[in-house]
């Protein structure tokens, strides 16, 4: 199995440790991982804003970079959702279809494809809240949707519960959007910030020390708010917990 590691642009520049943790984790699990060096952005920021013209070249470059892998894995639900569900600014060739179908978010790849049962190398002594992004829940369906009458499941929680020391606390509104929303966070600053502040307040009320997510973009926004409020919260990517660092 040959896996192309998709490292979203903001993880490359701002959270390199998340990229490292993802790579090391996949290597530990015996996967043949390659990082295509010419990757940039998947085109989501433009696509989300309805700007198909300016999304097209990013989408094309993404497909060029990843067409020759069995699977493409990225530690970012919203970017993966864009690839799988909204990569339609470019012609839908066989190659594009292959890339869309085989691009996985890390949690679903570990759960559904690798079916990992344990992480014996990892310990994480924290009371954590899980934040699955809206894209990961309602797009990729890594968690049951609270709006639906369907049995409860949460792939992120299931993976974390295999790590020694982790206590999972469910907050009051676990699947309420945190307000990041891509460019929304600056174009609609007041609402975005209010949603983030309410999310941080929910964490504080439940006395968690750490927020674990498969989506660093939401955490970037939440952490920015928590830091400004001097709230004692740590924000980490699930790859860092499952790989036992780096943090």
């Amino acid at each position, binding site marked *: 199995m040959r896996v192309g590691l998709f490292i979203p642009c903001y993880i490359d520049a701002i959270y390199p440790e998340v990229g490292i943790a993802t790579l090391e984790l996949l290597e530990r699990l015996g996967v043949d991982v390659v990082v295509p060096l010419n990757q*940039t952005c998947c085109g989501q920021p433009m696509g989300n804003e309805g700007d198909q013209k300016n999304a097209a070249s990013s989408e094309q470059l993404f497909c060029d970079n990843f067409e020759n892998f069995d699977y493409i894995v990225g530690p970012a639900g919203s970017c993966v959702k864009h690839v799988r569900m909204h990569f339609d600014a470019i012609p839908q060739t066989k190659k594009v279809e292959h890339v869309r179908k085989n691009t996985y978010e890390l949690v679903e790849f570990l759960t559904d494809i690798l079916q990992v049962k344990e992480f014996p190398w990892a310990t994480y002594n924290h009371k954590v809240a899980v934040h699955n992004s809206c894209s990961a829940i309602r797009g990729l369906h890594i968690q049951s949707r609270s709006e639906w009458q369907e049995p409860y499941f949460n792939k992120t929680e299931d993976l974390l519960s295999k790590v020694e020391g982790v206590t999972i606390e469910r907050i009051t509104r676990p699947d309420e959007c945190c307000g990041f929303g891509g460019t929304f966070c600056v174009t609609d600053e007041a609402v975005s910030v209010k949603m983030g502040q309410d999310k941080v307040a929910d964490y504080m009320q439940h006395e968690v020390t750490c927020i674990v997510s498969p989506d660093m973009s939401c955490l970037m926004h939440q952490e920015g708010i928590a830091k400004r409020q001097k709230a004692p919260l740590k924000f980490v990517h699930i790859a860092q917990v499952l790989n036992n660092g780096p943090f």
Partner: protein
Amino acid sequence: MSKVKVDQNAADFIYMDDIHQPTHDKNLWNARMKRDTAASGIPEWEQMRDLASQIKEHTLTHLDHYVQQFVTEATKRGVTVHFAKDDIEHNQTVYDILKSHHATKIVKSKSMLQEECDMGAFLEARGIELIETDLGERIQQLSGEMPSHIVMPAIHKTTADVAELFARTIGTDPNEDDPKQLTEAMRNNARPKFLEAHAGLTGANFAIAETGAFVVCTNEGNADLTASIPPLHIASIGIEKILPKTKDLGLFIRLLSRSALGTPATRYTSHFMGPRESGTEMHIVLTDNGRSRRLGMEDFWRSLKCIRCGACMNTCPVYRRSGGLAYGATYSGPIGIIIDPTFDESKFSELPFHSSLCGSCSEVCPVRINIAEQIGLWRQRMVNINESSKTLHYAFGAVEKVFANPKLFRLAEKAAYYGMKLTPNWLLYHKKLNAWGKHRELPEIKKETFRDWYIKNRLKK
């Protein structure tokens, strides 16, 4: 028509004080929670959503047939059916009916279509005294505001706001802020108006093609008072309200109020099938007002399935923080975002961007409208007709060149690193220049990117 600045209006609502927005959020979130509880008691809930969606899509794809059948059947029952292609014809038709009956005092129950046509102002300008009888609508009428929510028109107001309003307008004790007493005051204020009214106006939640009946759902009983006392009943019905058969109502009544408020049904589910007794008249104004045009919009026609339950508004995290008035339109929240631009693309061009695209709206919708997807498609439409924010897309134009070129991208990453290091804090946190930094700390751009690390630790070893 000037653009609605929905983001600015929402900011005003948030920063008004520390009571209104949190209360609004709490009350609507409670409605969403009650909806979840109500739905969880019904094992066939998801299947019912599928069926309701399918019936609506069936009806809309055969709408000419069902409109014709509805009109034939209603006419057989002694109802006079009028046709209005737009808001102007709708209002004129209602006015003409009233005028020919010398009706100058009217009571009305809630109708989003009449709101959409701004009928109240039209009739009042022609000397008609019009009283809203739904409590929430009456509050909004007395405030001179549009409804802020489809089902709970005054939900953005606190009890204290209503106490102040009623003291000013209907003479209640300004210190009286008990909702029970305020409701009682309005009951007593409204009673004589029902008794004196020359005509009663309603909308309709559903219209049944096979019988010509229409259905009105209320909790207060105000539609039944409106229809059972005056000798003239005029109902405004949008063409998308039609369902083929009576038995379809079984599904829709089970879904409607559970989705809206988490109650099994509304207190009154009223079916009108013709004039009441001899000497009374019933008129229907069957109205298009942009609906047939929307039916022809490939990406957007499914918004016509909407049964106006408001579940998408209750669940929407952005709507709960913004308040409904921020949208500056008859329909607010997620459903408003996808309907309002069909009336005026320029005025409402910013609405589709007032969403974090969390997708919860699509998941609660009892008739499975792909609301979130349509919001995305409206964004594309706004970009294509040059109605979206210019600055953002100039920026995207520049960014696109960078993302398309890996070398430029690496340079930009480094530039960002040094840029952040060298830029003084006051510039980063200046509110006009940087919307991120007003209430958030900036993330740190690392000197060594993941790619740098990978080359050093994997490729050079």
